[in-house]
Structures are given as structure tokens and as C-alpha cells.
């Protein structure tokens, strides 16, 4: 897949001296769903704000479909839709009006049929003449999505799309995201909810303290950075680990009822077979065996901690 957004050596230092982005290099592939994962204040919003033109970069370049975001801003911004993190909407406009305004702002010809269909897709069709201030938080979020999609962008940025959103809307949102992807739209979302990245993204980038720590396919990330743990439950309490097992990286829990063996998820060099054989040869009586796999969350916490 060719890359649609290309970020090279991007840094941003705010006037206050705060370094929000430190030498970011990232290629976003056409048609993918990329999740940018990181704790609050990591630089996720600054990164997407820079690509969208809300924040000026201090150094480095960003190109969108081959066009520079500064010199060719009209071309690049035309391709991008942004759903901001905060529920920022004017107070007195009606839903249809504000979405139609967004379309015009992006220089697109008025198209009421398209807007009507968009509102229908977002379950807003019965709200189109209501003033936005009268809407609930979830509905406002939908209006923001409609505004971002009003000019039929090829790239959609969702900044913390599910912060403060109920389960139903979250499901709807993922449905919409997948539909957009089917149409070929590239989607970049930021989140600090790991389940979210795990559920929807194809690739995951981890940002902390202004640095992009890793960008990897979700499965690869879990494989490369993930760990597996084999837990052997015992029927009777063991005082100590039999000496035959010492050569393996095993631990006995305090209650003496579990032996755990941690190994690399890639499985290379693991010696499960040998271990199990030696367990059955020993005087230990097996009750059950289970395997724990580290989640994206564990990987994320590890990555952020290392730095």
C-alpha cells in the first residue's frame, strides 16, 4: 500500500517552550486504520493538529498525497476531515445548517442530498432542524462527525472519538469507521483507551512524551512485544519447585498452588514440551493448565515505562 500521509522529522515546540513533538517520522498508508495510542499530554492532538493545519510545525515536513501541508495547504486540507476532541459547536445553528456550512467552508458545491444522506447514516435525520446546543453529548459528537465528512474527505482524523460516549454510540461509530474504510477512506484515531485500538485498528502507533515509540501492525506488535505465560495449577500445595524444573524460567506462587512459566510470544526457543514432560515426571499433581497472553494494554504500559 502506498502512503497517503508522510511525516518526516516533525518537531513542535510551543511558545511556552514545551516540546510537544520530538522528531516524529511516520508514514500513514492509504486506506488503513491507524490508532495513535498514548497517555494524556503525549502529543497525539498536537500531531494531528499539525497535519490538519491548526498548529504550525517548528521543523520537519508533512506531505499529504505528495503535497506539502504548508505550501499546498488548499490541496492537503481539502482531503482531510477532522473530528476534534472537544464538543466544539456553535450555539445557535441548526444541525443541517452547520453541516452544510462546513461543506461550503471546504469549497464544495452545495449538495443537500448528500448532507441529508450523511445525517441519515449518522441517525441525525430527525434532528436536522434542531439547534445544536439542545442536543445531548452523544448527538453533538455525531454532528461533529457529520461536519468532518461534509466535504467527502479521503482522510479522516478522529481525536479521542469515544471519550464520554456510551456503548451504543461507540458501536455505531465503529460501524461508520468500517464503512468509511470500505469506501477507501484512511482513518487515523487517537485514543488512550487501549481496547479501542485493539478492537478497530490495523496498525498501532504508541506515542509518549512527544516521541513515537513504535508503529506496528497490531498483531506484530503483540507478537513482538507480547509475552505469554503458562500457568500450571496443582492439586496439592508444593513447598518448592522440583530441582528438575530449575533450568526453566519458572516461579511458584506464594500459596504453592501455581507454577508459572513466562515465555516469548513468538514461541521460538520456548521449551514447553520439555517442561510439561518434566512436570509429569516429577511428584507434582496437575489440576489444570492455562495460558495468559499479554494484552495491548500490558505492552503499552511496558513501552511507556521503559522510556
Amino acid at each position, binding site marked *: 500500500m502506498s502512503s497517503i500521509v508522510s511525516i518526516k522529522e516533525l518537531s513542535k515546540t*510551543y*511558545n511556552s517552550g514545551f516540546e510537544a513533538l520530538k522528531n516524529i517520522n511516520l508514514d500513514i498508508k492509504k486506506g488503513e486504520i491507524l490508532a495513535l495510542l498514548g497517555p494524556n499530554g503525549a502529543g497525539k492532538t498536537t500531531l494531528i493538529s499539525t497535519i*490538519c*493545519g*491548526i*498548529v*504550525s510545525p517548528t521543523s520537519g515536513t508533512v506531505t499529504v498525497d505528495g503535497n506539502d501541508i504548508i505550501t499546498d*495547504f*488548499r*490541496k*492537503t*486540507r*481539502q482531503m*482531510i476531515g*477532522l473530528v*476534534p476532541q*472537544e464538543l*466544539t*459547536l*456553535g*450555539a*445557535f445553528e441548526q444541525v443541517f445548517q452547520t453541516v452544510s*456550512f*462546513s461543506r*461550503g*467552508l*471546504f*469549497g*464544495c*458545491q452545495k449538495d443537500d442530498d448528500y448532507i441529508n444522506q450523511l445525517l441519515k447514516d449518522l441517525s441525525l435525520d430527525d434532528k436536522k432542524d434542531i439547534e445544536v446546543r439542545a442536543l445531548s453529548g452523544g448527538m453533538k459528537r455525531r454532528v461533529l462527525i457529520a*461536519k468532518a465528512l461534509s466535504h467527502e474527505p479521503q482522510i479522516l482524523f478522529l481525536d479521542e472519538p469515544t471519550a464520554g460516549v456510551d456503548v451504543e454510540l461507540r458501536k455505531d461509530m465503529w460501524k461508520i469507521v468500517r464503512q468509511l474504510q470500505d469506501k477507501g477512506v484512511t482513518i487515523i484515531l487517537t485514543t488512550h483507551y487501549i481496547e479501542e485500538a485493539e478492537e478497530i485498528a490495523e496498525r498501532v502507533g504508541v506515542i509518549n512524551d512527544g516521541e513515537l515509540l513504535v508503529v506496528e501492525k497490531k498483531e506484530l506488535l503483540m507478537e513482538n512485544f507480547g509475552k505469554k505465560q503458562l500457568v500450571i495449577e496443582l492439586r496439592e500445595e508444593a513447598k518448592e519447585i522440583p530441582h528438575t524444573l530449575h533450568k526453566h524460567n519458572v516461579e511458584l506462587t506464594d500459596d504453592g498452588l501455581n507454577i508459572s512459566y513466562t515465555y516469548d510470544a513468538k514461541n521460538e526457543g520456548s521449551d514447553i514440551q520439555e517442561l510439561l514432560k518434566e512436570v509429569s515426571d516429577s511428584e507434582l499433581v496437575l489440576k489444570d493448565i492455562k495460558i495468559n497472553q499479554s494484552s495491548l494494554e500490558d505492552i503499552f504500559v511496558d513501552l511507556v515505562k521503559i522510556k
Partner: protein
Amino acid sequence: MMNFRAIKVIYLHEMLRFWQTLFQSVASPILSTALYFVVFGAAIGSRISDVDGVSYGLFIIPGLTMLSVLTQSISNASFGIFFPKFTGTIYEILSAPISFYDVLIGFVGAAASKSLFLAAIILITASFFVDLNVAHPFWMLGFLILTCVAFSLFGFIIGLWAENFEKLQIVPLLIITPLVFLGGSFYSINMLPPLWQKVTLFNPVLYLVSGFRWSFFEISDVSVGISLLMVIVFLSACIGVVAWIFKSGYKLKQ
């Protein structure tokens, strides 16, 4: 290349607020003009002798119009750009494929249009109280349009600069209102002692009011050429400041 569709939607969006409050937009200038005429025209004006051969009721019309045009241009334009900053909806304008100049034309164009509309209402209302004849309609319109645009630009700058509602109010309230009242809106500077006549020459509003009044009655405190020059100087200064703001991103974008 400009994004004309974007300019159009910004302009219409700004005008929408005006139409939505049309009653208020029309009724309040009619009422205030009527009140000025009752107080200054009929009650007090009848005891004031003619100024440079023009009855006092007539004399105050240009100043009265300028007073409203100046304050409304500033408040409309400053509020127009301040409000998106305040609510956060400015993100959309900043991320749209439009230049700052497109934004400027939309916002300032709308604010200036509203002021022109307001001036028309005031002059129409005034014509019910006095017999109003405009000596130089072309110049009258010219001064009016230049003033509306210049002060809408000035308001736009204030709206960009202000971070809170207090700052938004402070310039119109503490600077513009005194300048307008002391700029010969309601008197000829010839009525002042010589020292204050000199001081008044530093007030830019004097030149606006004087030039505007000349276009009605062919009487003026300073020559028309200087008036026109001062309006253009003020307009250019505002354009210069705006250009600097847009180049540096001051208060718009970090």
C-alpha cells in the same frame, strides 16, 4: 486563488445572526436615533443657534450616524471572530482549505454590510424629523463605505487580540466612545477654545465626521482632502496590522 465558496458561506453565516435578530437590529437604531432627535433636536436643539448656517438638528445627523457606524462596526466584527475562538469552533476555519484573507473578507465584509445597513436606517429615520438633503451623495457613500470597512477591520483586530469578554469590550468602551464624542460629532470644533481645537486635531474620528458632514452640508472642520487622506491612512494601518497578524499567526495559531 481564493476560495469564493468559503468566503460566501462565512459571509452568509455572519449575516444570518443579523437577520435572526432583525427586529432588534432595526428597532434599536430607529429608537436611539429618535431619542437623540427628541433630546438634541427638539428639546435642547431649539435653544442652540445654527452651526455654520445649519440648524442643530441637521448638524448632528452625520455625527450621530458615525457614532453608530463606528461602534457597531467594531462590535460586530470583533464579536464575529472572537466567538469562534471562544467556543473553539475556530478549529474548523483553521483546518479548512482557506487562507486567512478569505476569512478576513468573509468576516469583515459581513460586519461592514451590517454597519451600512444600520447607517441607512439611521438616515431614513432622521429624514422623518428633519428635511435632509445630501449635497454630495457619491462622497457621502464613499466616506461611509470606507469608514465601515476600516472600523470593521479594526474590530476584527480587536476580536483576534482579545482573550476574554472584558478585553473585547474595553477598546470600544474606553477609547472609541470618548473619541467619537470628542471628535466633533455633536459640535463644531470652532466652538472650542484654541488649545482644545489643536488637541482635537489628533483625534482621527474628527476627520471622519468632518468629511462625512461635508458631503451632506458642504461645511467642515478640516479640509475634505485631509479627511479622505486620514480615512485611507487609518484603513491602510488596519490592513498592515492584519497582514502582520496573518503572517505571524499571532493569537490565531501556534
